[in-house]
């Protein structure tokens, strides 16, 4: 049993890296707009299906298909925030959060309406797992890990070095001060909705690459993504990465004594544990 631990750790890091992508999207949206956006789930699903169409119908390979996932999910995120969620914001974050649940159910059913309930698999070349002694690593997993790391690097570079990225951090940090400095908060909100939901879409497709996708793909992953963001500290982007790795590894290690279907329960327990012990999360602000 103990001999499985190294394998589980490797799987956990890979799963965590994938989880970090939508978790960054979620936490970035939270940082700027200050509400838990549950419609992340359906945007992940939309991304997964956009990538699926690009991959199986248009014959794109993984990376270009991921770009499609980003663009389509981002665009839907931008439009749905502009026309559905934005009007709620003045009514408070709870109304907005409830609205985002209704939105996610609506969007999920749009996907179901178009694609049906059946499982769909990506068209990927069959590859044999690499073996290192007792350890098995799938080439696709390594590719996913590499993609996630690149995505994270791009996000960090964007936030650190570009004017828009800095403006985004300013709005997240202190909206009124950012406003005084002439930063257009509405524009930043649109960019963060687009990029955040685009990342959710990429995350949805990365999750789907390992297995298969259906209209509930995003919803099943949602608890883990929220766990990653909360464990790391809602609103903190480095926190989302740390949280995602923690949750990813925790979920894999739980396989030692629980069945795989309990993955999302582990995510929930992680949320509870962190909120009891350190409500602000590992790298975040106060939660009460």
């Amino acid at each position: 049993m103990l001999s499985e631990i190294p394998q589980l750790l490797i799987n956990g890091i890979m799963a965590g890296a994938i989880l970090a992508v939508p978790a960054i999207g979620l936490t970035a949206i939270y940082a700027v707009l200050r509400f838990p956006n549950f419609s992340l789930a359906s945007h992940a699903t939309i991304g997964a299906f956009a990538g699926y169409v690009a991959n199986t119908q248009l014959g794109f390979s993984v990376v270009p298909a991921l770009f499609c996932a980003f663009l389509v999910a981002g665009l839907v995120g931008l439009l749905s925030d502009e026309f559905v969620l934005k009007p709620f914001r003045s009514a408070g974050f709870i109304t907005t959060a409830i609205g985002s649940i209704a939105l996610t159910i609506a969007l999920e059913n749009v996907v179901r309406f178009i694609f049906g309930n059946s499982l769909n698999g990506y068209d990927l070349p069959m590859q044999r797992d690499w073996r290192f002694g007792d350890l098995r690593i799938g080439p696709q997993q390594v590719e996913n890990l590499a993609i996630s790391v690149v995505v994270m690097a791009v996000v960090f570079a964007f936030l650190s070095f570009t004017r828009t990225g800095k403006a985004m951090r300013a709005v997240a940090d202190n909206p009124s001060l950012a406003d005084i400095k002439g930063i257009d908060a509405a524009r930043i909100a649109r960019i963060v909705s687009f990029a955040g939901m685009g990342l959710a879409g990429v995350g949805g497709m990365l999750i789907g690459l390992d297995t298969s996708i259906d209209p509930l793909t995003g919803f099943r992953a949602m608890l883990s993504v929220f766990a990653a963001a909360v464990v790391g500290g809602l609103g903190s982007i480095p926190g989302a990465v740390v949280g995602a790795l923690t949750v990813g590894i925790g979920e894999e290690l739980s396989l030692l004594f629980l069945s795989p279907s309990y993955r999302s329960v582990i995510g929930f327990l992680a949320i509870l544990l962190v909120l009891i012990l350190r409500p602000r999360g590992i790298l975040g602000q106060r939660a009460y």
Partner: protein
Amino acid sequence: MENYLIAMGVSAGIYALMALGLNVIWGMAGLVNLGLVGFFAVGAYTSALLTTKLGLPILLGVVAGAGMGALVGVLVALITARLRGDYLAIVTLGFAEALRVIASNEVWLTNGTDGISGIPGPFRADLGPVGFNLFFLILVAALVTAVFFAFERLSYSPFGRVLRAIRDDDQVAAVAGKWVIAYKVQAFAIGCAALGLAGALYGHYTSYIAPEIFVPLLTLYIKLSLLAGGVGNNRGAVIGAVLVVAFLESTRFIIPLLPGLSAVQGAALREIIVSGALIVLLRFRTQGLVPEAHSHPLIPRQPGAAAKESPTHA
């Protein structure tokens, strides 16, 4: 047709019980609970398991279901008592999801995704299908009435006033010497007892429960009920539940009129319509049909005070 209407009535009654429960938690105390369906499931499973596996009488099962709902409510409230609302939203939603995963996997207890069938209904065999439905409708109506008057009483009692004070500003309530956390926990307990009761009744009425029934959409239906009727208002909760069931059922008739849709597409379209309706309602009618009553039923509220007091604006 009568039987169908009676069944709709029973659904409306069960939704009304849940909306009344939510009204205590959200409407009166202003606490977020996006995991309503979890407490509903706790009640349903508790009562179903006690009556099918241990053969306890239905009445005992239903009481235990409500009690278990309250107990779990207390637990969730204690864990989350100090959290900000947005975290409470995540935790309660996650709680309901985690519970559904557990119910799907602990096959030894819950029979997994197959669900529990053959849950006994009161006098089901003696009354025949139509008689049973009618009897259950009367039973549910009586319970809704009882809970309604109890919660009305609660709402105008000093306890209800403290809850509303906490909702509007919990620091002021604390300064006034109220033990805020204790009140929040009690509000959760009372509300979740109503949710558990509704769940238990649901199981005994339909004789079958399964994890797939307890989806977040059901939570939304109840939010929709309370929003349609008016948050903070018990009468609104009941009226809203009736309206929501009527609306949900009417979509059932509209969908077959559209040609060329598969069963999955029809179901998907129905959920799109329902969630779309919630979005529209949330957007344009946060006050609901029956706005929250003033602290006294006979003294009219001042104009303009409504918007300030609605918890959706908190």
